[in-house]
């Protein structure tokens, strides 16, 4: 009985058509082409990539000038960072009294020390490589709600350290 059943199954297997089938991929290609067009539109060709941190909201502007590869400075509500290194603590966007110079209230000492180090480093590189030169440019990414008071102090200290060309990073307004 069992043998008979097996024979019947074998008959069925023999009769089966070879298991080749074609996947219908037209709709998948359609989807990929749409995705490709979208990604190509938002593809960045800028050599410099600035990723603002989560705690930072940059102001929106219509300026379309692409950033260049220069020193990056971040001024958020929690602190001042130079090349991702925290140099000054801020409490809700305000400086502590001890952070500014007693003789010059616009001068942030810790920021000056770090920027001065950066200037020395850039000048050493420039002395070794004739193609590079120190041009005193710095990109400042600052929280949009911060008052001009703190930004002025940062710009003043940068200027004193030798970074006189401060560029303000903004989010492009579409």
């Amino acid at each position: 009985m069992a043998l008979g059943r097996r024979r019947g199954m074998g008959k069925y297997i023999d009769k089966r058509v070879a298991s080749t089938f074609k996947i219908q991929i037209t709709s998948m290609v359609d989807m990929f082409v749409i995705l490709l067009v979208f990604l190509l539109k938002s593809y960045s060709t800028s050599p410099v990539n600035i990723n603002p941190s989560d705690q930072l909201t940059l102001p929106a502007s219509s300026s379309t000038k692409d950033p260049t590869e220069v020193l990056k400075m971040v001024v958020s509500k929690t602190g001042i960072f130079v090349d991702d290194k925290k140099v000054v603590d801020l409490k809700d966007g305000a400086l502590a009294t001890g952070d500014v110079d007693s003789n010059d209230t616009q001068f942030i000492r810790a920021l000056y020390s770090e920027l001065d180090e950066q200037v020395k480093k850039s000048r050493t590189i420039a002395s070794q490589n004739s193609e590079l030169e120190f041009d005193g440019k710095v990109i400042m990414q600052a929280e949009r709600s911060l008052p001009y008071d703190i930004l002025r102090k940062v710009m003043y200290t940068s200027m004193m350290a030798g970074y006189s060309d401060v560029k303000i990073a903004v989010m492009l307004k579409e």
Partner: protein
Amino acid sequence: MRALKSRIDDSTFELNLAPMLDIIVSIIPMLLLSVVFTRITVIDTPVPQAVEQAVAAANEKNKDLIQVRMAVAKNRNVQITIVDHGQSKDYEVAALNAKTDLDGLYKQVLAIKKDYPDVFRVELNPEESVPLEEIVAVMDSVRTTKSSDKKVVFTDSTTGKPVETNLLLPDIIFGNVAGG
């Protein structure tokens, strides 16, 4: 008849999409890695080369003769002062709903540019409490003309030829940074 049948058979074929799919699947991860959803730019002077030289020459010529100063007060009133050969003129753009009247400011700057077409530099002096977003908005509204408005025509001091530009006051410097 047989020939017609053969032709009909030839005209139906299946396009092999597999290689195309391979290419797309390779490109998509690369594009996904380099995609940017928010573009970061910097505030600078987007000036074409020919105009840039004319603007630089005009700025140099007017450096000590004509100066434009713009003060943004904490109540968001904007005061524009023009010092023309020692004589000063003041214009005030009052705040609108406790915010800077950007349209009013733009119209005022456009009117000033009619009298001073070869002035491109402005000294911006915001008060300490003015937030950065307000300063950037002010800078944006005085940088260029809107596409619906006529372009500014000024004479290139080096060539003597008229130059047409959409720039109003693109050369913005913070005047009160070094002042302490």
